[in-house]
């Protein structure tokens, strides 16, 4: 197995480093961190480590999840292992800023405390290599605006689970736009439909955590054109 194959496999299994207790049958074997170290020593390109090793591994995790073989707990463990790897690469990546995939500001809207869906989406995005700024729950429009100003390139993701808070998405988008901010906005949560998203002027919508990475990537692509 090549190092990249090994790295990919360590992400899939969620094995952070040789000392990590999970999965039991890999204890003692090199994990994500160890393999990245080795790869850097062997002068493998950062881009390759990131795209083939980490994101490549996470893509397979995503597939396993979609097919019903993996559940969220497994996915979280892989995401953590991947994040451990990313943390090592980050100081090096800043020197090559074009490598940064993108930033997403995530929050559950005002009045709403449901965050499981939002957290999952955040996790998937991190797994896809995005930086996620999580504003938590019950987030008022001002807080979204503040963060959008600081991150003009970021995509904003809003979640709402209550029929009585989904209207706060409309309000928030209005206020964001009235500040002259043009961040792309995506929304989600059980009661949200495509029609509603169109109605309130959100650029994207999904009811499926698995689709979100693709959705965000497409939005970024269309932005560049």
């Amino acid at each position, binding site marked *: 197995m090549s190092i990249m194959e090994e790295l990919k496999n360590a992400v899939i299994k969620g094995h952070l480093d040789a000392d990590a207790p999970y999965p039991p049958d890999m204890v003692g074997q090199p994990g994500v961190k160890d393999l990245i170290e080795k790869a850097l020593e062997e002068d493998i390109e950062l881009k390759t480590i990131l795209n083939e090793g980490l994101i490549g591994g996470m893509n397979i995790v995503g597939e396993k999840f979609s097919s019903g*073989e993996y*559940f969220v*707990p497994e996915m979280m463990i892989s995401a953590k292992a991947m994040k451990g790897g990313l943390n090592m690469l980050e100081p090096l990546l800043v020197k090559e800023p074009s490598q940064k995939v993108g930033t997403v500001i995530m929050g559950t809207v005002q009045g709403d*405390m449901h965050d499981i869906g939002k957290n999952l989406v955040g996790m998937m995005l991190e797994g896809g290599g995005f930086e996620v700024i999580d504003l938590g729950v019950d987030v008022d429009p001002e807080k979204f605006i503040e963060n959008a100003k600081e991150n003009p390139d970021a995509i904003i993701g809003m979640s709402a689970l209550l*029929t*009585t808070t989904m209207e706060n998405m409309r309000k928030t988008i209005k206020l964001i736009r009235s500040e002259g901010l043009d961040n792309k906005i995506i929304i989600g949560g059980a009661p949200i439909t495509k029609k509603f998203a169109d109605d309130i002027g959100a650029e994207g919508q999904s009811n499926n955590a698995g689709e979100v990475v693709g959705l965000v990537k497409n939005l970024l692509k269309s932005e560049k054109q």
Partner: protein
Amino acid sequence: MKQNRKIKQLVISDENDLTFGKAPHPVECGKGLVIGGGQVYPEINFTLPSMTVEEDTWQEVRNQYSTIIEEICQRAVVLETSGIVVEFELLPPMTLNPQWGAEITQILRNTLDNYYEKDGLRSALRVTPVDVRDAERPPRMRNGKFWDKTYRSFELCAEAGADMLSIESTGGKEIHDEALMQGDLAGLIFALGSLGARDMKFLWSHIVDIANKYNVIPAGDTACGFANTAMVLAEKKMIPRVLAAVDRVASVARTLQGHLEGAVGPTKDCAYEGPYLKALCGIPISMEGRSSACAHLSTVGNIAGACCDVWSNESVQNVRLLSANAPVVSLEQLIYDCRLYNTAIEAGNDYSENYRKMLIESDLHLDPQAYVLSPEVVIRIAEKLVKCETPLAMTIQSARETVKIIEQAYNNKELNLNKGDIRWLGLMKTQLETIPEDESQLLENIKSGPLANKFLPEEYGL
């Protein structure tokens, strides 16, 4: 009315006595409804369509509820229903402004009174404030603005005309949410058996006091924020179904604490732990199944009804369907379901026993979450639970017994499991070996792990 502070033996120990419409300790409420006294009543629940709740929209909110309750009562009369339970689940702003919740309670109260006088429609009104303590992270359970609002909401709604009080309380959820996503059984058990159980005791001793003061019924709670979150996640294939089944049974000890403090039932509709509570304390229970598909999909549509005393739709928005507004549609479905339950009861043992068996058999083999609701399994597990000394011990025991019983059922080809489920049965067994029954020990373990800063031990008297 207070039950013993500890359960020493099952009130229902024969699985055949765990059946619909009959509870050893019936509850009389509202306009003469006797819940668990030989009939199953529909419980209709509804919520607003897409709109905000604020000063500006308040008049429209009031109109919505007036229309809904009016249409519901009309339909109930046309279908010659012997009685209905109406649940009003507050939305967060209605607990944060307790006066608002009380206003809506009053609207519902008046309309129900009218229809009782005008058409003889018997009814009972359950009011369920929101547990807004969950609005802070980490939440404060016994102090602060949110606890005050929750408390006040109960008082004002009781005063405004509720017949019964309920809540979907959230003590321990701050840990449970995380643990569930990580498949961490120690965290789940700590959240339910320690934090959850402690908060239930605290909270329900207060609710029972308020209920006594206003002479209304302290009905019951639900592990909705826990086990139903797990159920919905399993439905979305986010967690394995066996984990959701274990989490369900592991929530029994937690919800039980409310009844040890004096809650008398009917339990909240979304408390699928109800059958266990009925066996343990003999209280009547509200359940939901196929006719709550409007609120969540599920794999227990029929079996959930096997021993219900009240039958609910959980919730539906007030949107227009082709026939009528959705709450009326839900009510009609519940009423037809109840006609079947009650026709079976009236027709005698043959009929009700056969029907109960059909309800069970039709779901039993397809999902572990259905399997653990079968009266036979309920009694088998509940028998083990009465022997436990503490809520925490009971919670651990629930999880262990559930894993064991699911495994047996799978081996006996009584239950369908997929590969992921089977892998997780193994993973759970391993985890369960190392969870201490000693609360302070478990607390120490949690405090030294990643969940340490997610909760405030002093808010649970720890």
